[in-house]
């Protein structure tokens, strides 16, 4: 050891020469670089939204909002076009609803199992496996629905057509399941251990502790997971395009071909639509509708988490 610590006035001042100018300069450079990336991503988003808005305005200069909202047909590619967006929305709604009926209960069960019942080491590998499942390309799910699930369903559901909302919705649900399960599991796992102990200490069983204490405590996170699932279901494209068909019909019958908002966009954007035509603008109007719906869902989820999150600390 050296001598004891010397107070500041005794230490030799010339040993301490921080280069304030250089560090200020590098600070500024770093700030500029990161700042420009941030600005770039913001501008990209703004650019996309601006394009959507401009083209949507062009669309509505030719098609009235009333027709858009209240027409019961969607035939923009016909010689006598109709623009009833609810035809597409009904299909999106139907497939999403079926998907959620599958994904929410199964996802929650999986989440509770993983978090509360599975041994720690099982959870340690099952959770990442679940998250990998979320990365399976949806096109794979899509042709699985069309080529395997639909033929099986046909054997016992009379009137089921080759393209239908049911099969698409069921498989869409399977595709969403990992997301909902994984996010809900995070929320359930994050419930403080204290709370579980408080329940057990009152003579509660595991089942009572899970349903009466843990799940209510994780509610805001679970709801956020479900809303995110809804947003993904609404925006999902390949499964519904492949398995539900391209047939715009205003119906909630799960056995017949339908066309969702996303599959309409695929259909039109995949063909050759001249820029500046009404057909081209229709794409953006549908895109805008999708954007607004998902945005609302995100805001709802954000609001819900803020409002209902319990503060434990």
């Amino acid at each position, binding site marked *: 050891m050296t001598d004891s610590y010397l107070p500041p006035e005794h230490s030799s001042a010339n040993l301490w020469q921080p280069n304030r100018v250089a560090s200020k300069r590098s600070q500024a450079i770093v700030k500029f670089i990161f700042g420009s990336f941030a600005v770039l991503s913001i501008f990209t988003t703004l650019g996309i939204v601006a394009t959507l808005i401009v083209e949507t305005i062009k669309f509505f200069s030719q098609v009235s909002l009333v027709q858009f909202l209240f027409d019961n047909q969607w035939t923009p590619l016909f010689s006598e076009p109709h623009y009833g967006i609810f035809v597409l929305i009904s299909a999106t709604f139907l497939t999403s609803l079926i998907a959620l009926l599958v994904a929410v209960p199964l996802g929650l069960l999986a989440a509770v199992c993983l978090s509360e019942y599975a*041994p*720690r080491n099982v959870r340690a590998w099952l959770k990442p496996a679940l998250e990998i499942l979320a990365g399976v390309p949806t096109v794979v799910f899509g042709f699985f629905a069309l080529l395997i699930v639909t033929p099986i369903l046909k054997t016992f559901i009379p009137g089921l057509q080759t393209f239908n909302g049911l099969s698409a919705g069921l498989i869409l649900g399977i595709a969403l399941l990992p997301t909902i399960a994984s996010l809900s599991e995070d929320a359930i796992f994050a419930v*403080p251990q*204290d*709370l*579980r*102990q*408080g*329940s*057990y*200490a*009152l*003579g*509660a*069983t595991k089942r*009572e502790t899970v349903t*009466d*204490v843990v799940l*209510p*405590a994780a509610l805001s996170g679970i709801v956020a997971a479900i809303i995110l699932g809804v947003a993904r279901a609404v925006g999902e494209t390949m499964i519904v395009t492949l398995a539900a068909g391209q047939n715009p019909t205003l119906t909630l019958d799960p056995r017949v071909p339908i066309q969702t908002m996303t599959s309409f966009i695929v259909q039109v954007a995949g063909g050759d639509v001249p820029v500046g035509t009404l057909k081209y603008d229709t794409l953006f109007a549908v895109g805008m509708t999708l954007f607004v719906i998902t945005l609302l869902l995100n805001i709802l989820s954000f609001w819900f988490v803020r409002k209902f999150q*319990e*503060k*434990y600390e």
Partner: protein
Amino acid sequence: MHSNSAAAVGTSNAFHVEKGNYYYGSVLAVRDVFLEIPEKKITAFIGPSGCGKSTVLRCFNRLNDLIPSARVEGKITYRGVDIYDKSVDATELRRRIGMVFQKPNPFPKSIYENVAYGARINGYKGDMDVLVERALRGSALWDEVKDKLKDSGLSISGGQQQRLCIARAIAIEPEVLLMDEPCSALDPISTLRVEELMQELKKHYTIIIVTHNMQQASRVSDMTAFYNAQATDKGGKMGYLVEYAPTQTIFNNPSQVATQDYVSGRFG
């Protein structure tokens, strides 16, 4: 030195621990615990942190069953029954042995539901309003919350939350209350209220309290157990019971030097 403690305060014993060795995995965390906890008295556990007070306490209601690696050797009986016997249902045991934790942990439910929860899950068939009021009065919280029973249990102050947790524990009419540093997160005034409450509660309940605060132990308890920790060759710590005697004796005339040092504030 441990044998006649119950006789010393003049009641029968609730718990009896004989050569309790408490393990986490293969690590012996607390060794050689012999205790007799008298009924309807307050027994305090004191000692430096990490010496195993919580561990010993959490085995009285088998809450340590929730930690997969936790294990006990020796014999722990409650009213003569070996609580680790296969025939004993831990859920049923916990219904009779309530617990209050270090950090207030009300459920994310209303004040009313926090108190009613234990009664509901245990199949209480009587009038719930009466039960909730009685428990909240019992924990000296009723006057402060009677107009906001529907509010969240998390919306009240820390001291009130802790008394809510006491109300929740006594609502199911247990026989014992285990309290693990119940005042460590509270301000002095709330602490005093909880201490007064304990004096009131001990008419009906056997209480075991872990505390860091020696004044608190000397103020509230009838019996005191002093634990200490020794270094192990593997670099860890192993807790053990140094001395267990009436509180008077522990604070005024302990038989061990370590106890004398600890209660006079020379270490810990």
